[in-house]
C-alpha cells in the first residue's frame, strides 16, 4: 500500500494531539512553548500534504511559510515574556503565575 494523503493527515493528527496534551498538562512555561511549536509543525505538515495530494496547489506551501513566520514571532515574544516573568518572580512555573487569576 503506497503512502497517500491519509497517511500524512493521520501522522499530523497524532503529532497535534501529542502537542496539545503537552501544552495543556505541563507546568514549565518553556515546555508549554515547545509543545505549541509541535502543534504548529503538525499543521504545516497537513498544508504541505494538501499541496502534494489535494486541491491546494503551491498555495499550501505559501500558507506554511506564513505559519512559520508567525511561529518565529510567537516564540520570540513568548520567550521575552517568560524572561521578564523570571526576572520579577524567579520562576517559570505557570501554576505560580496567578496574579490575574480571579
Amino acid at each position, binding site marked *: 500500500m*503506497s*503512502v497517500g494523503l*491519509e497517511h500524512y493527515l493521520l501522522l499530523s493528527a497524532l503529532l497535534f494531539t501529542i502537542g*496539545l496534551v503537552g501544552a495543556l498538562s505541563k507546568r514549565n512555561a518553556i515546555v508549554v512553548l515547545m509543545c505549541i511549536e509541535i502543534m504548529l*509543525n503538525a499543521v504545516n505538515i497537513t498544508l504541505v500534504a494538501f*499541496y502534494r495530494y*489535494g486541491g491546494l496547489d503551491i498555495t499550501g*506551501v505559501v500558507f506554511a511559510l506564513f505559519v512559520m513566520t508567525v511561529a518565529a514571532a510567537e516564540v520570540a515574544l513568548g520567550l521575552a515574556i517568560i524572561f521578564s516573568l523570571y526576572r520579577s518572580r524567579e520562576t517559570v512555573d505557570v501554576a505560580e503565575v496567578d496574579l490575574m487569576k480571579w
Partner: protein
Amino acid sequence: MDFHAVAFYALGAVLIGSALAVVLLNNVFRAGLFLVLAFFAVAGLFVSLGADFLGAVQVLIYVGAIGVLLLLSIMLTRDVHHGSPGNRLWPGVVLLGALLLGSISYAVLNTPWAAKAPVTPSPTTAALGSRIFDLQGGFILPLEIAALVLLAVVIGAIVLVGEE
C-alpha cells in the same frame, strides 16, 4: 515498499518518538534537544512531499533560530532542576487528546478525498516566488503585514526584556 514509503515511516517514527520524548522527559534540556530532532524530521517529511524550499527554510528557521533560542532560554532560566512536572489536569487532558485523535481519525478515514494525481516533484522556489508576488490574487499584502509583524515583535521583545 518503495523509497517514499520507507522514508515516510522512518521519518514518522522519529518524529512521533521525539515528540513523545518532549512531552514525557523530565529533563527540560533533553526535551529541547529532542524538539530539535523533531524539527529535523519534519524538514525531512517536507522534502519527501516535494517541498524542497520549505524543507530548507524549516532547517534554517526552526532548527537554526527557534531551537537555539529555546535551548538558550532553558539555560538562562535556572529552573532546570525543577524538571518538567505535569499539573493536576493531566488525566482529563489525556482523555481529551484521545477524543480529539479519535474524531480527527474518523473524519480523515471517512472523507472521500478527491482522487487527484500527486503533483510531480519539481523545484518549488520559482513557483513559490511567482505565486506570492503574483499581481492578480497574489500574497503581496500578507507579505507586507508579516514584515510589519516581525518588526513589531522585535520592538516588543526589546521593550519587554530591556533594562529600565
